[in-house]
């Protein structure tokens, strides 16, 4: 009797477990569609005001994303955005990459840095949005901006912000050691030596973890790391050890060896505290850098007016070259349920005046939208971080308009990781810049071959 009751109980329990397993699988999906009112829009960070409209899911990490999304939803009568912040940069890319491999789980629209577009495009993870209303917004962005989001004739993203590069420097330290902002890289080295001889701080930083910056500096001297014809994606030209690339690595390697610049990884507490405490006299970076520093509390209070900005030093002052670091776009993923609707979001998001103005006044973005770029208020803005200097007019806008765009590789992550490895080796002194460039070429070319490319 006792035994029988136990048996019954066990059988019921087993049946219940099976049932529970079934219902949790089915119920999750059902709940998702019921609450959001649109495909997969169950857990948005923002509240959707117009619940009867279809929704488009979106990932992004701009600091003022909430405001941008709210502005879009308020102004749009056709579609609503359901936004989630799944992390910044590689955190997001890793999740997107996993979703691509799994074939499910990606959002409809995704914010990505422009240098990643080929990486995802070659996996057929992005949609060409040219046929979904490109002509209407074509005039809103310059040709360089469009080039960075295009592969051949196809357009894989809508540019939002750019990263024209410049030299941020400590005005107080420059004054103390009587140094003028260098106009060429030769002057940069002389100034660094002068500062060191006078017992001053390090002049800059050569970091292993900012491969995109190192690449931009190589391109400035004339390197063109990758070439490929979009019509023939299986063939790629890789040229990472040309003279320009070697020269730039050797230049920074020598500065580090002489102790003129530091070798701290950037975006780390160690580095930011160094910048705050005046450990580095210059900070070679992009237009979004001040926003990043103000976020860490730099340039306010006692620090006011300590920072200034000058154009990026040149190799040949007669033929200046401007380069770019970072900058992002909104792309439509191939997992989007309604690509046309998703493209409307990609084109419209962060393109309204209110959002753009919030972005540039708070130095969160350097806008690529010409409506903002040509806005006299933007151009003449006296930037508080730079002690009232008209940084946009003097430095960033000219740099951005002279920027011609570049070709990124379809295996950006691998290339950047391999570059990090080589720059670390230069820093610890085991190879010279030229040797590192050769090794990098070998490494990346081998990877490309392994991935099935024909390397030229």
């Amino acid at each position, binding site marked *: 009797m006792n*035994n*029988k009751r*136990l*048996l*019954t109980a*066990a*059988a019921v*329990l*087993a049946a219940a*477990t099976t049932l529970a397993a079934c219902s949790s699988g089915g119920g999750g999906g059902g709940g998702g569609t019921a609450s959001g009112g649109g495909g997969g829009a169950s857990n948005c960070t923002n509240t959707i005001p117009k619940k009867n409209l279809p929704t488009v899911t979106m990932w992004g990490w701009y600091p003022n994303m909430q405001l941008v999304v709210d502005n879009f939803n308020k102004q749009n009568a056709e579609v609503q955005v359901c936004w989630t912040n799944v992390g910044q940069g*590689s955190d997001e*890319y*890793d999740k997107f*990459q*996993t979703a*691509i*491999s799994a074939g499910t789980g990606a959002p409809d629209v995704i914010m990505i840095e422009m240098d990643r577009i080929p990486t995802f495009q*070659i*996996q057929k993870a992005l949609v060409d949005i040219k046929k979904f209303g490109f002509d209407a917004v074509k005039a809103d962005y310059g040709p360089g901006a469009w080039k960075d989001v295009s592969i051949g004739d196809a357009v894989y993203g809508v540019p939002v912000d750019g990263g024209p590069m410049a030299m941020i420097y400590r005005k107080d330290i420059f004054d103390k050691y009587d140094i003028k902002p260098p106009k060429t890289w030769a002057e940069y080295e002389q100034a660094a030596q002068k500062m060191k001889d006078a017992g001053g701080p390090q002049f800059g930083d050569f*970091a*292993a*973890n900012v491969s995109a910056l190192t690449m931009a500096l190589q391109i400035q001297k004339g390197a063109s790391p990758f070439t490929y014809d979009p019509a023939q*994606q*299986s063939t790629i030209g890789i040229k990472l050890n040309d003279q320009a690339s070697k020269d730039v690595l050797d230049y920074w390697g020598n500065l580090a060896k002489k102790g003129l610049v530091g*070798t*701290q*990884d950037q*975006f*780390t*507490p*160690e580095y930011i*505290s*160094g910048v705050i*405490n005046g450990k580095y006299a210059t900070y070679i970076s992009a237009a979004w850098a001040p926003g990043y520093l103000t976020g860490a509390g730099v340039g306010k209070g006692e620090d006011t007016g300590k920072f200034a900005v000058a154009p990026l030093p040149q190799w040949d002052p007669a033929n200046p070259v401007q380069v770019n670091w970072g900058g992002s776009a909104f792309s439509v993923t191939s997992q989007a349920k309604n690509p046309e609707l998703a493209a409307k979001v990609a084109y419209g998001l962060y393109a309204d005046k209110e959002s753009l103005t919030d972005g540039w006044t708070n130095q969160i973005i350097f806008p690529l939208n010409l409506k903002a770029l040509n806005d006299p208020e933007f151009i003449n803005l006296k930037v508080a971080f730079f002690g009232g200097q008209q940084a946009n007019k003097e430095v960033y806008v000219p740099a951005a308009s002279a920027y011609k765009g570049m070709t990124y590789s*379809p*295996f950006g*992550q*691998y290339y950047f*990781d391999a570059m*990090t*490895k080589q*720059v*670390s080796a230069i*820093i*610890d002194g085991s190879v010279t810049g030229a040797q590192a460039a050769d090794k990098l070429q070998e490494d990346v070319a081998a990877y490309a071959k*392994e*991935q*099935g*490319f024909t390397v030229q």
Partner: protein
Amino acid sequence: MTLLTTDTKSAPRARDKTPDRRGKVRLREHVMGWLFVGPFGIVFLALLIAPLAYALYLSLFQKKLIGGTSFVLFDNYVKAFTDPSFLSGSWFVIRFSLVSIPLQIIVALAMALILDTVTSLFTRFSRLMIFLPYAIPTVIGAVMWGFLYSKSFGPLTDLFGLFGATPPDFLSGNLIFYGLVNVVTWQWAGYYMIILYAALQGIDPALYEAARMDGAGRWQIALRIKIPLIAPALLLILVFSLIGTLQFFNEPQILRSLAAGTIGPDFTPNMYAYQQAFALANFNYGSAISFALGGIVFVGVYAFLFLTRKRRTFL
């Protein structure tokens, strides 16, 4: 449903024939056994065996950006065992095990023996304090040590500055090994100490009494009685720490961003597998690396158990 019908049907007949009844009872016990194992079995199959089988399946394929997926049998394994990244990472965790495991166990054993011998007001407090690092999540522990080691924030700069010396940089290429040994020992020694302490508490005090009557001192009791009697516990923590160290991941992954360039993405095999799978979308090779690492762990633990089995005791 079916189970219940069989049960009711068999009941009257079982009363008539004894041999048949015995068979039915055995069958019923059989079914009962499976039902008890069932809940565990389902979870075990769904959450351990199935993912493992899937990873093994993945590891037999190769996916290229150009050309798609193809079946390659063991090519990924051949590649792993000739891949300098995987080999140097494996060599690192093996060296790391050889240094950090004995250190952790010596520290844990010493503390357990002291706490077992000394009885004072502070024993309980000390026990808690030594155990405390284990209660801190590894990620937070690693971040904390990263800041302690830091040249800008850490106390080392100030401490050495008092004597006009420059502090050692535990995040640099030369010293990162010892920096990590320290973090791991700090985190795990307390946990192993608790296991050993519990084993010590299980020893019958009459044995000490007898030893003392025979003239044994404290050292002799510790070395000749206590340690041999807790040998099984020592063996257990050795296996734990061996498996844990060979799969080293959290601490170096966290310290990566603080240790300028000294920790690459292929620092340990587990980190390398993670990078391949989740950053480079190469799930196939990532799975192969994981399985190859699993093989190394298996060989290591098996060899260790084989060596210790022969002598029966640890010392």
